[in-house]
Protein backbone atom coordinates (compact mmCIF):
# COMPACT_ATOMS: atom_id res chain seq x y z
CA UNK A 1 0.00 0.00 0.00
CA UNK A 2 1.34 3.42 -0.93
CA UNK A 3 0.16 6.64 0.67
CA UNK A 4 0.94 9.98 -1.05
CA UNK A 5 0.15 13.39 0.39
CA UNK A 6 -0.14 16.87 -1.00
CA UNK A 7 -1.59 19.94 0.65
CA UNK A 8 -5.25 19.04 0.28
CA UNK A 9 -5.38 15.42 -0.80
CA UNK A 10 -4.26 11.99 0.25
CA UNK A 11 -3.83 9.32 -2.39
CA UNK A 12 -3.66 5.68 -1.44
CA UNK A 13 -2.86 2.89 -3.83
CA UNK A 14 -4.31 -0.40 -2.60
CA UNK A 15 -3.80 -3.96 -3.78
CA UNK A 16 -7.22 -5.53 -4.38
CA UNK A 17 -5.75 -8.99 -4.02
CA UNK A 18 -5.28 -8.18 -0.33
CA UNK A 19 -8.16 -5.80 0.36
CA UNK A 20 -11.48 -6.43 -1.39
CA UNK A 21 -13.64 -3.56 -2.65
CA UNK A 22 -16.00 -4.20 0.24
CA UNK A 23 -13.21 -3.85 2.80
CA UNK A 24 -11.88 -0.70 1.12
CA UNK A 25 -15.30 0.93 0.99
CA UNK A 26 -16.18 0.08 4.57
CA UNK A 27 -12.85 1.45 5.75
CA UNK A 28 -13.03 4.79 3.89
CA UNK A 29 -16.70 5.29 4.78
CA UNK A 30 -15.45 6.49 8.18
CA UNK A 31 -13.25 9.15 6.54
CA UNK A 32 -16.19 10.77 4.77
CA UNK A 33 -16.88 13.15 7.64
CA UNK A 34 -13.70 15.09 6.87
CA UNK A 35 -12.86 14.03 3.31
CA UNK A 36 -14.49 13.55 -0.04
CA UNK A 37 -13.47 10.04 -1.01
CA UNK A 38 -13.11 8.86 -4.63
CA UNK A 39 -12.27 5.37 -5.81
CA UNK A 40 -10.63 4.63 -9.14
CA UNK A 41 -9.61 1.27 -10.54
CA UNK A 42 -6.02 1.58 -11.75
CA UNK A 43 -5.63 -1.88 -13.21
CA UNK A 44 -6.63 -5.45 -12.55
CA UNK A 45 -4.89 -5.43 -9.20
CA UNK A 46 -4.82 -1.89 -7.90
CA UNK A 47 -7.39 0.64 -6.84
CA UNK A 48 -6.57 4.24 -6.15
CA UNK A 49 -8.37 6.05 -3.34
CA UNK A 50 -8.25 9.85 -3.32
CA UNK A 51 -9.27 11.65 -0.16
CA UNK A 52 -9.82 15.40 -0.54
CA UNK A 53 -9.85 17.40 2.66
CA UNK A 54 -13.15 19.20 3.27
CA UNK A 55 -12.56 20.16 6.89
CA UNK A 56 -10.96 23.38 8.12
CA UNK A 57 -8.05 21.53 9.66
CA UNK A 58 -4.81 20.74 7.92
CA UNK A 59 -4.08 17.14 6.98
CA UNK A 60 -2.07 15.41 9.69
CA UNK A 61 0.24 13.33 7.52
CA UNK A 62 2.00 11.45 10.30
CA UNK A 63 -1.31 10.45 11.86
CA UNK A 64 -2.93 9.36 8.59
CA UNK A 65 0.10 7.42 7.39
CA UNK A 66 -0.27 5.26 10.46
CA UNK A 67 -4.08 5.26 10.75
CA UNK A 68 -5.11 4.34 7.21
CA UNK A 69 -3.17 1.03 7.04
CA UNK A 70 -4.30 0.20 10.57
CA UNK A 71 -7.95 0.80 9.66
CA UNK A 72 -7.68 -1.19 6.43
CA UNK A 73 -6.20 -4.11 8.30
CA UNK A 74 -8.90 -3.94 10.97
CA UNK A 75 -11.65 -3.93 8.35
CA UNK A 76 -9.98 -6.87 6.66
CA UNK A 77 -10.10 -8.76 9.95
CA UNK A 78 -13.74 -7.81 10.47
CA UNK A 79 -14.49 -9.10 7.01
CA UNK A 80 -12.81 -12.43 7.77
CA UNK A 81 -14.94 -12.88 10.90
CA UNK A 82 -18.06 -11.88 9.04
CA UNK A 83 -17.47 -14.28 6.17
CA UNK A 84 -16.41 -17.17 8.36
CA UNK A 85 -19.30 -16.80 10.78
CA UNK A 86 -22.07 -15.83 8.40
CA UNK A 87 -23.89 -19.16 8.63
CA UNK A 88 -23.48 -19.57 12.38
CA UNK A 89 -24.84 -16.08 12.85
CA UNK A 90 -27.84 -16.85 10.66
CA UNK A 91 -28.36 -20.04 12.62
CA UNK A 92 -28.24 -18.24 15.98
CA UNK A 93 -30.79 -15.67 14.83
CA UNK A 94 -33.04 -18.27 13.21
CA UNK A 95 -32.98 -20.48 16.29
CA UNK A 96 -33.53 -17.49 18.57
CA UNK A 97 -36.70 -16.50 16.79
CA UNK A 98 -37.97 -19.99 15.99
CA UNK A 99 -40.99 -21.12 17.94
CA UNK A 100 -39.53 -22.38 21.21
CA UNK A 101 -42.55 -24.50 22.02
CA UNK A 102 -41.87 -26.55 18.93
CA UNK A 103 -40.10 -29.75 19.94
CA UNK A 104 -38.37 -30.53 16.68
CA UNK A 105 -34.96 -29.16 15.80
CA UNK A 106 -34.70 -26.17 13.53
CA UNK A 107 -34.20 -27.41 9.96
CA UNK A 108 -30.60 -26.58 9.15
CA UNK A 109 -31.02 -26.85 5.41
CA UNK A 110 -33.02 -23.62 5.46
CA UNK A 111 -29.98 -21.72 6.67
CA UNK A 112 -27.53 -22.57 3.93
CA UNK A 113 -24.83 -25.15 4.20
CA UNK A 114 -21.50 -23.62 3.36
CA UNK A 115 -20.03 -24.93 6.61
CA UNK A 116 -21.41 -28.39 6.00
CA UNK A 117 -23.96 -28.43 8.81
CA UNK A 118 -25.87 -31.24 7.19
CA UNK A 119 -23.05 -33.66 7.57
CA UNK A 120 -22.85 -33.12 11.33
CA UNK A 121 -24.95 -35.57 13.22
Amino acid sequence: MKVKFDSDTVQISIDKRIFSNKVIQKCFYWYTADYTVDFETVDEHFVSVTMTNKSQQEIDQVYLAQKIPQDLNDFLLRDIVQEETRDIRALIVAKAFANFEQEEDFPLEQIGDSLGFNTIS
Partner: protein
Amino acid sequence: MITLPVTGAERKSRKFLDISHYDHAGNYHLLPFRFVALRNGREVLVNEIGDFLIVDKGTARRIINRKLDPFEDSELYADLIANFFISQTRVPALLEVIATRYRTKKSFLDHFTALHIFVITLRCEHTCHYCQVSRVSEDKDTFDMGRTHIDKGIELMMRSSNPHVTMEFQGGEALLAFDQIMYAVQRASAESQKIGKQISFVICTNLAPLKKEMLDFCLKYKIIISTSLDGPEFLHNKNRHKKRNDSYQLAISGIRKCREILGNDAVSALTTTSTLSLDYPHEIVGEYINLGFNSIFLRPISPFGFAVKNDRKNKYDTDRFLEFYKKGLDLIIEHNLNGNFFREDYASIILKKILSPFPVGYVDLQSPAGMINNVIVFNYDGYIYASDEARMLAEMKDYTFQLGHLDTAGYEDIFYGEKAFSFAESSVNESLPGCSDCAFQTYCGSDPVLNHSTQGNLIGHRPTSVFCQKNMGIISHLFELIDSDERILKIFNNWIEN
Protein backbone atom coordinates in the same frame (compact mmCIF):
# COMPACT_ATOMS: atom_id res chain seq x y z
CA MET B 1 -27.05 -11.40 36.84
CA ILE B 2 -23.93 -12.49 35.05
CA THR B 3 -20.75 -10.53 35.60
CA LEU B 4 -18.53 -11.03 32.65
CA PRO B 5 -14.77 -11.27 32.72
CA VAL B 6 -13.00 -7.99 32.33
CA THR B 7 -9.49 -8.86 31.49
CA GLY B 8 -9.21 -12.26 29.95
CA ALA B 9 -5.48 -12.53 30.26
CA GLU B 10 -5.49 -11.73 33.98
CA ARG B 11 -8.14 -14.21 35.04
CA LYS B 12 -6.76 -16.96 37.16
CA SER B 13 -9.71 -18.74 38.71
CA ARG B 14 -11.56 -20.35 35.82
CA LYS B 15 -12.25 -24.02 36.25
CA PHE B 16 -11.72 -25.56 32.85
CA LEU B 17 -10.63 -28.76 31.26
CA ASP B 18 -6.91 -29.41 31.22
CA ILE B 19 -5.14 -27.63 28.39
CA SER B 20 -4.19 -30.93 26.81
CA HIS B 21 -7.86 -31.22 26.01
CA TYR B 22 -7.57 -28.50 23.39
CA ASP B 23 -6.28 -28.66 19.91
CA HIS B 24 -3.00 -27.07 18.96
CA ALA B 25 -2.52 -23.42 17.97
CA GLY B 26 -5.01 -22.07 15.48
CA ASN B 27 -7.18 -25.13 15.34
CA TYR B 28 -10.42 -23.48 16.33
CA HIS B 29 -13.48 -21.90 14.71
CA LEU B 30 -14.50 -18.29 14.97
CA LEU B 31 -17.88 -17.28 16.31
CA PRO B 32 -19.43 -13.93 15.36
CA PHE B 33 -17.80 -11.06 17.22
CA ARG B 34 -16.71 -7.48 16.59
CA PHE B 35 -13.86 -5.45 18.05
CA VAL B 36 -12.65 -1.90 18.46
CA ALA B 37 -9.57 -0.20 19.91
CA LEU B 38 -9.92 1.78 23.12
CA ARG B 39 -7.89 4.89 23.86
CA ASN B 40 -6.02 3.17 26.70
CA GLY B 41 -3.99 0.91 24.41
CA ARG B 42 -6.39 -1.99 24.82
CA GLU B 43 -9.19 -3.30 22.64
CA VAL B 44 -12.63 -4.61 23.39
CA LEU B 45 -14.11 -7.70 21.79
CA VAL B 46 -17.90 -8.03 21.81
CA ASN B 47 -19.76 -11.09 20.64
CA GLU B 48 -23.22 -11.43 19.11
CA ILE B 49 -24.95 -11.58 22.49
CA GLY B 50 -23.15 -8.63 24.03
CA ASP B 51 -20.56 -10.51 26.11
CA PHE B 52 -17.25 -8.70 26.11
CA LEU B 53 -13.56 -9.14 26.79
CA ILE B 54 -11.13 -6.27 27.19
CA VAL B 55 -7.76 -7.42 25.96
CA ASP B 56 -4.41 -6.09 24.80
CA LYS B 57 -4.35 -4.39 21.40
CA GLY B 58 -3.63 -6.87 18.63
CA THR B 59 -5.49 -9.73 20.31
CA ALA B 60 -8.33 -9.68 17.75
CA ARG B 61 -5.76 -9.96 14.97
CA ARG B 62 -4.11 -12.94 16.69
CA ILE B 63 -7.44 -14.66 17.24
CA ILE B 64 -8.65 -14.13 13.68
CA ASN B 65 -5.32 -15.04 12.10
CA ARG B 66 -5.31 -18.26 14.17
CA LYS B 67 -2.19 -17.23 16.05
CA LEU B 68 -3.57 -18.01 19.47
CA ASP B 69 -1.59 -20.59 21.34
CA PRO B 70 -3.72 -22.66 23.72
CA PHE B 71 -0.68 -23.22 25.94
CA GLU B 72 0.84 -19.77 26.10
CA ASP B 73 -2.53 -18.04 26.03
CA SER B 74 -4.37 -20.62 28.09
CA GLU B 75 -6.45 -18.20 30.19
CA LEU B 76 -7.46 -16.09 27.22
CA TYR B 77 -8.18 -19.19 25.17
CA ALA B 78 -10.43 -20.53 27.91
CA ASP B 79 -12.23 -17.20 28.22
CA LEU B 80 -12.78 -17.00 24.48
CA ILE B 81 -14.34 -20.45 24.43
CA ALA B 82 -16.40 -19.98 27.58
CA ASN B 83 -17.73 -16.64 26.36
CA PHE B 84 -18.58 -17.78 22.83
CA PHE B 85 -15.91 -15.97 20.82
CA ILE B 86 -14.36 -19.13 19.41
CA SER B 87 -15.44 -22.73 19.30
CA GLN B 88 -13.62 -26.03 19.03
CA THR B 89 -16.34 -27.40 16.80
CA ARG B 90 -17.79 -25.88 13.65
CA VAL B 91 -21.18 -25.62 15.30
CA PRO B 92 -20.66 -24.80 18.97
CA ALA B 93 -22.03 -27.38 21.36
CA LEU B 94 -23.88 -24.66 23.25
CA LEU B 95 -25.56 -23.16 20.20
CA GLU B 96 -28.96 -23.41 21.92
CA VAL B 97 -27.62 -21.36 24.82
CA ILE B 98 -26.30 -18.67 22.46
CA ALA B 99 -29.64 -18.57 20.62
CA THR B 100 -31.56 -18.30 23.89
CA ARG B 101 -29.28 -15.50 25.06
CA TYR B 102 -29.81 -13.72 21.73
CA ARG B 103 -33.57 -14.09 22.13
CA THR B 104 -33.34 -12.66 25.66
CA LYS B 105 -31.42 -9.64 24.38
CA LYS B 106 -34.23 -8.97 21.93
CA SER B 107 -37.03 -9.82 24.35
CA PHE B 108 -38.06 -6.16 24.54
CA LEU B 109 -39.86 -6.96 21.28
CA ASP B 110 -41.96 -9.74 22.80
CA HIS B 111 -44.82 -7.61 24.05
CA PHE B 112 -44.83 -4.73 21.58
CA THR B 113 -45.81 -1.14 22.43
CA ALA B 114 -45.65 -0.29 26.14
CA LEU B 115 -45.32 3.49 26.33
CA HIS B 116 -48.35 5.49 25.20
CA ILE B 117 -47.74 9.22 25.33
CA PHE B 118 -50.82 11.42 25.50
CA VAL B 119 -49.95 15.05 24.74
CA ILE B 120 -52.77 16.27 26.90
CA THR B 121 -52.24 19.94 26.17
CA LEU B 122 -49.88 22.20 24.28
CA ARG B 123 -50.48 25.05 26.69
CA CYS B 124 -47.66 26.13 28.97
CA GLU B 125 -46.85 29.07 31.23
CA HIS B 126 -43.11 28.77 30.58
CA THR B 127 -41.34 30.08 27.49
CA CYS B 128 -38.19 27.96 27.57
CA HIS B 129 -35.87 28.92 24.74
CA TYR B 130 -35.26 25.32 23.75
CA CYS B 131 -38.88 24.20 23.88
CA GLN B 132 -40.02 22.81 20.58
CA VAL B 133 -43.74 22.62 21.03
CA SER B 134 -45.54 24.57 23.73
CA ARG B 135 -47.86 27.57 23.44
CA VAL B 136 -48.61 30.30 25.94
CA SER B 137 -52.35 30.38 25.50
CA GLU B 138 -55.59 30.19 27.47
CA ASP B 139 -57.39 28.56 24.56
CA LYS B 140 -58.31 25.16 25.98
CA ASP B 141 -60.49 24.16 23.06
CA THR B 142 -57.68 24.48 20.55
CA PHE B 143 -54.74 23.24 22.55
CA ASP B 144 -56.13 20.60 24.97
CA MET B 145 -56.81 17.03 23.93
CA GLY B 146 -60.53 16.42 23.46
CA ARG B 147 -62.32 13.62 25.29
CA THR B 148 -63.22 11.75 22.10
CA HIS B 149 -59.54 11.60 21.29
CA ILE B 150 -58.66 10.53 24.83
CA ASP B 151 -61.23 7.72 24.52
CA LYS B 152 -59.86 6.60 21.18
CA GLY B 153 -56.27 6.69 22.45
CA ILE B 154 -57.23 4.55 25.44
CA GLU B 155 -59.04 2.13 23.14
CA LEU B 156 -55.88 1.71 21.06
CA MET B 157 -53.73 1.38 24.18
CA MET B 158 -55.96 -1.41 25.44
CA ARG B 159 -55.39 -3.25 22.16
CA SER B 160 -51.61 -3.37 22.71
CA SER B 161 -50.47 -6.95 23.17
CA ASN B 162 -48.28 -5.73 26.03
CA PRO B 163 -49.75 -6.89 29.38
CA HIS B 164 -48.22 -3.85 31.11
CA VAL B 165 -48.64 -0.47 29.44
CA THR B 166 -47.59 3.00 30.55
CA MET B 167 -49.81 6.02 29.97
CA GLU B 168 -47.64 9.14 30.06
CA PHE B 169 -49.11 12.64 30.04
CA GLN B 170 -47.01 15.30 28.42
CA GLY B 171 -47.44 18.90 27.39
CA GLY B 172 -46.99 21.81 27.06
CA GLU B 173 -47.51 21.77 30.78
CA ALA B 174 -49.65 18.73 31.47
CA LEU B 175 -51.02 19.94 34.82
CA LEU B 176 -52.77 22.85 33.07
CA ALA B 177 -55.16 20.24 31.68
CA PHE B 178 -55.57 18.31 34.91
CA ASP B 179 -59.31 17.87 34.36
CA GLN B 180 -58.48 15.94 31.19
CA ILE B 181 -55.83 13.92 33.02
CA MET B 182 -58.36 12.93 35.70
CA TYR B 183 -60.83 11.86 33.07
CA ALA B 184 -58.18 9.87 31.16
CA VAL B 185 -56.76 8.14 34.25
CA GLN B 186 -60.17 7.11 35.55
CA ARG B 187 -61.29 5.81 32.19
CA ALA B 188 -58.02 3.98 31.44
CA SER B 189 -58.06 2.38 34.92
CA ALA B 190 -61.60 1.14 34.42
CA GLU B 191 -60.86 -0.18 30.92
CA SER B 192 -57.64 -1.91 31.97
CA GLN B 193 -59.37 -3.62 34.90
CA LYS B 194 -61.97 -5.07 32.54
CA ILE B 195 -59.30 -6.91 30.55
CA GLY B 196 -56.74 -7.49 33.30
CA LYS B 197 -54.08 -5.24 31.81
CA GLN B 198 -51.61 -3.55 34.15
CA ILE B 199 -51.23 0.16 33.69
CA SER B 200 -48.78 2.70 35.09
CA PHE B 201 -49.38 6.44 34.92
CA VAL B 202 -46.75 9.14 34.58
CA ILE B 203 -47.24 12.90 34.45
CA CYS B 204 -44.39 14.95 32.99
CA THR B 205 -44.61 18.39 34.53
CA ASN B 206 -42.58 21.43 35.52
CA LEU B 207 -44.65 21.38 38.75
CA ALA B 208 -45.43 25.12 38.56
CA PRO B 209 -49.25 24.69 38.55
CA LEU B 210 -49.17 21.92 41.20
CA LYS B 211 -52.01 21.88 43.76
CA LYS B 212 -52.68 19.67 46.77
CA GLU B 213 -55.82 18.14 45.17
CA MET B 214 -53.74 17.04 42.22
CA LEU B 215 -51.37 15.16 44.49
CA ASP B 216 -54.27 13.52 46.31
CA PHE B 217 -55.51 12.27 42.96
CA CYS B 218 -52.00 11.10 42.02
CA LEU B 219 -51.74 9.22 45.29
CA LYS B 220 -55.05 7.47 44.71
CA TYR B 221 -54.06 6.29 41.23
CA LYS B 222 -50.36 5.71 42.01
CA ILE B 223 -49.31 8.28 39.42
CA ILE B 224 -45.56 8.88 39.07
CA ILE B 225 -44.34 12.45 38.66
CA SER B 226 -41.53 13.14 36.24
CA THR B 227 -40.28 16.69 36.50
CA SER B 228 -37.51 18.80 35.07
CA LEU B 229 -34.62 20.18 37.03
CA ASP B 230 -31.74 21.60 35.04
CA GLY B 231 -29.40 22.29 37.97
CA PRO B 232 -28.90 25.13 40.47
CA GLU B 233 -31.29 28.10 40.54
CA PHE B 234 -29.35 30.43 38.21
CA LEU B 235 -29.05 27.72 35.56
CA HIS B 236 -32.56 26.31 35.83
CA ASN B 237 -34.17 29.74 35.63
CA LYS B 238 -32.02 30.75 32.69
CA ASN B 239 -33.00 27.57 30.81
CA ARG B 240 -36.64 27.62 31.85
CA HIS B 241 -37.89 31.06 31.24
CA LYS B 242 -40.94 32.17 33.20
CA LYS B 243 -42.49 35.56 33.90
CA ARG B 244 -41.53 35.91 37.56
CA ASN B 245 -38.28 34.02 37.14
CA ASP B 246 -39.46 31.54 39.78
CA SER B 247 -39.33 28.27 37.84
CA TYR B 248 -36.65 26.81 40.11
CA GLN B 249 -38.46 27.71 43.35
CA LEU B 250 -41.69 26.20 42.06
CA ALA B 251 -39.91 23.03 40.94
CA ILE B 252 -38.14 22.60 44.29
CA SER B 253 -41.24 23.20 46.39
CA GLY B 254 -43.18 20.92 44.03
CA ILE B 255 -40.63 18.12 44.44
CA ARG B 256 -40.85 18.52 48.23
CA LYS B 257 -44.66 18.32 48.20
CA CYS B 258 -44.62 15.30 45.86
CA ARG B 259 -42.21 13.50 48.15
CA GLU B 260 -44.33 14.32 51.22
CA ILE B 261 -47.55 13.05 49.74
CA LEU B 262 -46.52 10.45 47.16
CA GLY B 263 -43.22 9.24 48.64
CA ASN B 264 -39.65 9.68 47.47
CA ASP B 265 -39.83 7.04 44.77
CA ALA B 266 -42.85 8.58 43.09
CA VAL B 267 -41.01 11.64 41.85
CA SER B 268 -38.05 11.75 39.53
CA ALA B 269 -36.35 14.62 37.77
CA LEU B 270 -34.72 14.96 34.37
CA THR B 271 -32.03 17.39 33.33
CA THR B 272 -31.92 19.00 29.97
CA THR B 273 -28.42 20.01 29.04
CA SER B 274 -28.46 23.33 27.25
CA THR B 275 -25.39 25.12 25.92
CA LEU B 276 -25.16 27.03 29.18
CA SER B 277 -25.33 23.81 31.22
CA LEU B 278 -22.18 22.51 29.56
CA ASP B 279 -20.03 24.75 31.77
CA TYR B 280 -21.55 23.43 34.99
CA PRO B 281 -21.38 19.61 35.22
CA HIS B 282 -20.31 19.63 38.87
CA GLU B 283 -22.92 22.16 39.92
CA ILE B 284 -25.68 20.15 38.21
CA VAL B 285 -24.64 16.83 39.73
CA GLY B 286 -24.13 18.55 43.11
CA GLU B 287 -27.66 19.97 42.98
CA TYR B 288 -29.17 16.52 42.50
CA ILE B 289 -27.06 15.04 45.29
CA ASN B 290 -27.99 17.86 47.67
CA LEU B 291 -31.68 17.44 46.92
CA GLY B 292 -31.51 13.80 47.93
CA PHE B 293 -31.98 12.22 44.53
CA ASN B 294 -30.18 8.93 44.04
CA SER B 295 -29.70 9.34 40.32
CA ILE B 296 -29.37 11.86 37.52
CA PHE B 297 -29.93 11.54 33.79
CA LEU B 298 -27.33 13.65 32.00
CA ARG B 299 -29.08 13.91 28.65
CA PRO B 300 -28.36 16.29 25.83
CA ILE B 301 -30.99 18.61 24.50
CA SER B 302 -32.44 17.10 21.36
CA PRO B 303 -31.65 18.75 18.05
CA PHE B 304 -35.32 18.77 17.04
CA GLY B 305 -37.97 21.33 16.49
CA PHE B 306 -37.44 24.92 17.42
CA ALA B 307 -34.21 23.98 19.13
CA VAL B 308 -32.26 23.88 15.85
CA LYS B 309 -33.51 27.35 14.99
CA ASN B 310 -31.97 28.89 18.08
CA ASP B 311 -28.33 28.47 17.14
CA ARG B 312 -26.60 30.65 19.66
CA LYS B 313 -28.31 29.13 22.69
CA ASN B 314 -28.91 25.54 21.63
CA LYS B 315 -26.47 24.33 19.06
CA TYR B 316 -23.57 22.90 20.89
CA ASP B 317 -21.33 20.26 19.51
CA THR B 318 -21.26 16.72 20.70
CA ASP B 319 -17.63 16.98 21.73
CA ARG B 320 -18.55 19.58 24.27
CA PHE B 321 -21.40 17.44 25.52
CA LEU B 322 -19.08 14.45 25.89
CA GLU B 323 -16.59 16.52 27.82
CA PHE B 324 -19.42 17.71 30.08
CA TYR B 325 -20.74 14.17 30.46
CA LYS B 326 -17.35 12.72 31.42
CA LYS B 327 -16.73 15.44 34.01
CA GLY B 328 -20.16 14.81 35.52
CA LEU B 329 -19.61 11.06 35.51
CA ASP B 330 -16.20 11.44 37.18
CA LEU B 331 -17.79 13.36 40.02
CA ILE B 332 -20.56 10.77 40.36
CA ILE B 333 -18.04 7.92 40.49
CA GLU B 334 -16.00 9.78 43.09
CA HIS B 335 -19.16 10.24 45.19
CA ASN B 336 -19.77 6.48 44.95
CA LEU B 337 -16.15 5.70 45.82
CA ASN B 338 -16.73 7.72 48.99
CA GLY B 339 -19.38 5.25 50.03
CA ASN B 340 -22.56 6.80 48.61
CA PHE B 341 -25.04 5.42 46.14
CA PHE B 342 -25.73 7.80 43.26
CA ARG B 343 -26.27 6.69 39.68
CA GLU B 344 -26.04 8.25 36.24
CA ASP B 345 -29.02 6.91 34.33
CA TYR B 346 -27.74 6.97 30.73
CA ALA B 347 -24.61 5.06 31.77
CA SER B 348 -26.79 2.64 33.75
CA ILE B 349 -28.90 1.88 30.69
CA ILE B 350 -25.81 1.08 28.63
CA LEU B 351 -24.12 -0.77 31.50
CA LYS B 352 -27.14 -3.00 31.95
CA LYS B 353 -26.76 -3.99 28.32
CA ILE B 354 -23.02 -4.55 28.81
CA LEU B 355 -23.01 -6.30 32.18
CA SER B 356 -26.24 -8.27 32.19
CA PRO B 357 -27.93 -10.62 29.74
CA PHE B 358 -31.09 -8.51 29.77
CA PRO B 359 -32.38 -5.82 27.45
CA VAL B 360 -33.43 -2.37 28.65
CA GLY B 361 -36.76 -0.83 27.73
CA TYR B 362 -35.25 2.50 26.77
CA VAL B 363 -36.73 3.62 23.48
CA ASP B 364 -33.82 5.75 22.27
CA LEU B 365 -31.29 2.93 22.43
CA GLN B 366 -32.85 -0.07 20.77
CA SER B 367 -32.55 -2.08 17.62
CA PRO B 368 -35.11 -2.37 16.11
CA ALA B 369 -35.70 1.26 17.05
CA GLY B 370 -38.12 2.04 19.85
CA MET B 371 -40.54 4.04 17.73
CA ILE B 372 -43.87 2.26 17.27
CA ASN B 373 -42.43 -0.99 18.72
CA ASN B 374 -42.16 0.53 22.16
CA VAL B 375 -43.65 3.99 22.02
CA ILE B 376 -46.52 5.74 20.32
CA VAL B 377 -47.64 9.36 20.68
CA PHE B 378 -51.22 10.65 20.58
CA ASN B 379 -51.02 14.37 20.06
CA TYR B 380 -53.41 16.94 21.54
CA ASP B 381 -55.05 17.43 18.13
CA GLY B 382 -55.65 13.72 17.52
CA TYR B 383 -52.70 13.06 15.23
CA ILE B 384 -50.62 9.98 15.94
CA TYR B 385 -46.81 9.98 15.78
CA ALA B 386 -44.12 7.31 15.85
CA SER B 387 -42.23 8.94 18.73
CA ASP B 388 -42.04 12.08 20.81
CA GLU B 389 -39.39 13.54 18.50
CA ALA B 390 -41.63 12.74 15.52
CA ARG B 391 -44.37 15.02 16.86
CA MET B 392 -41.80 17.75 17.44
CA LEU B 393 -40.80 17.47 13.79
CA ALA B 394 -44.45 17.86 12.88
CA GLU B 395 -44.43 21.19 14.72
CA MET B 396 -41.90 22.20 12.06
CA LYS B 397 -44.32 21.04 9.36
CA ASP B 398 -42.47 17.79 8.70
CA TYR B 399 -45.08 15.04 8.82
CA THR B 400 -42.88 12.11 7.76
CA PHE B 401 -43.58 10.19 10.97
CA GLN B 402 -47.27 11.01 11.27
CA LEU B 403 -49.08 7.67 11.32
CA GLY B 404 -52.68 8.79 11.07
CA HIS B 405 -55.44 10.44 13.10
CA LEU B 406 -57.38 9.13 16.07
CA ASP B 407 -60.66 9.95 14.30
CA THR B 408 -59.98 7.73 11.35
CA ALA B 409 -57.11 5.26 11.84
CA GLY B 410 -57.58 1.72 13.10
CA TYR B 411 -55.05 -0.22 15.17
CA GLU B 412 -53.69 -2.19 12.20
CA ASP B 413 -53.34 0.96 10.06
CA ILE B 414 -51.16 2.58 12.69
CA PHE B 415 -49.02 -0.23 14.04
CA TYR B 416 -48.78 -2.48 10.98
CA GLY B 417 -49.51 0.04 8.24
CA GLU B 418 -47.39 0.94 5.23
CA LYS B 419 -45.67 3.79 7.06
CA ALA B 420 -44.69 1.61 9.99
CA PHE B 421 -43.21 -0.91 7.56
CA SER B 422 -41.37 1.74 5.62
CA PHE B 423 -39.44 2.68 8.78
CA ALA B 424 -38.50 -0.92 9.63
CA GLU B 425 -35.47 -1.21 7.36
CA SER B 426 -33.71 1.78 8.84
CA SER B 427 -34.65 0.76 12.38
CA VAL B 428 -32.24 -2.13 12.63
CA ASN B 429 -28.65 -1.16 13.40
CA GLU B 430 -27.43 -4.66 12.55
CA SER B 431 -27.86 -3.69 8.90
CA LEU B 432 -27.02 0.01 8.92
CA PRO B 433 -23.82 1.27 7.25
CA GLY B 434 -21.16 1.72 9.91
CA CYS B 435 -23.22 0.06 12.64
CA SER B 436 -23.09 -3.36 10.99
CA ASP B 437 -19.38 -3.65 11.82
CA CYS B 438 -19.43 -1.71 15.06
CA ALA B 439 -18.33 -3.43 18.26
CA PHE B 440 -20.96 -1.46 20.19
CA GLN B 441 -23.89 -2.55 18.03
CA THR B 442 -25.57 -4.68 20.76
CA TYR B 443 -25.39 -1.83 23.27
CA CYS B 444 -26.45 0.92 20.90
CA GLY B 445 -29.55 1.44 18.76
CA SER B 446 -30.89 3.24 15.76
CA ASP B 447 -32.82 6.46 15.49
CA PRO B 448 -34.37 6.98 12.04
CA VAL B 449 -36.24 10.08 13.24
CA LEU B 450 -33.00 11.75 14.29
CA ASN B 451 -31.29 10.63 11.06
CA HIS B 452 -34.12 12.12 9.04
CA SER B 453 -34.21 15.39 10.93
CA THR B 454 -30.48 15.99 11.10
CA GLN B 455 -29.20 14.24 7.95
CA GLY B 456 -32.15 14.23 5.59
CA ASN B 457 -32.73 10.48 5.29
CA LEU B 458 -33.78 7.57 7.46
CA ILE B 459 -30.56 5.58 7.08
CA GLY B 460 -28.25 8.40 8.14
CA HIS B 461 -24.50 8.83 7.85
CA ARG B 462 -22.63 7.48 10.86
CA PRO B 463 -19.37 9.44 10.48
CA THR B 464 -21.28 12.71 10.92
CA SER B 465 -24.11 11.47 13.14
CA VAL B 466 -24.51 13.11 16.55
CA PHE B 467 -26.22 9.94 17.77
CA CYS B 468 -23.21 7.83 16.76
CA GLN B 469 -20.62 10.26 18.05
CA LYS B 470 -22.36 10.52 21.39
CA ASN B 471 -22.90 6.80 21.89
CA MET B 472 -19.51 5.75 20.62
CA GLY B 473 -17.90 8.31 22.92
CA ILE B 474 -19.89 7.26 25.98
CA ILE B 475 -19.70 3.49 25.45
CA SER B 476 -15.95 3.46 24.85
CA HIS B 477 -15.48 5.71 27.90
CA LEU B 478 -17.46 3.24 30.03
CA PHE B 479 -15.25 0.37 28.84
CA GLU B 480 -12.14 2.39 29.63
CA LEU B 481 -13.49 3.04 33.12
CA ILE B 482 -14.33 -0.64 33.61
CA ASP B 483 -10.79 -1.54 32.58
CA SER B 484 -9.18 1.11 34.75
CA ASP B 485 -10.26 0.16 38.25
CA GLU B 486 -12.03 -2.89 39.67
CA ARG B 487 -13.82 -0.69 42.19
CA ILE B 488 -15.52 1.16 39.32
CA LEU B 489 -16.78 -2.12 37.87
CA LYS B 490 -18.25 -2.90 41.31
CA ILE B 491 -19.98 0.49 41.36
CA PHE B 492 -21.36 -0.08 37.88
CA ASN B 493 -22.69 -3.51 38.85
CA ASN B 494 -24.29 -1.90 41.86
CA TRP B 495 -26.00 0.69 39.66
CA ILE B 496 -27.63 -1.89 37.45
CA GLU B 497 -28.73 -4.08 40.35
CA ASN B 498 -30.50 -1.20 42.12
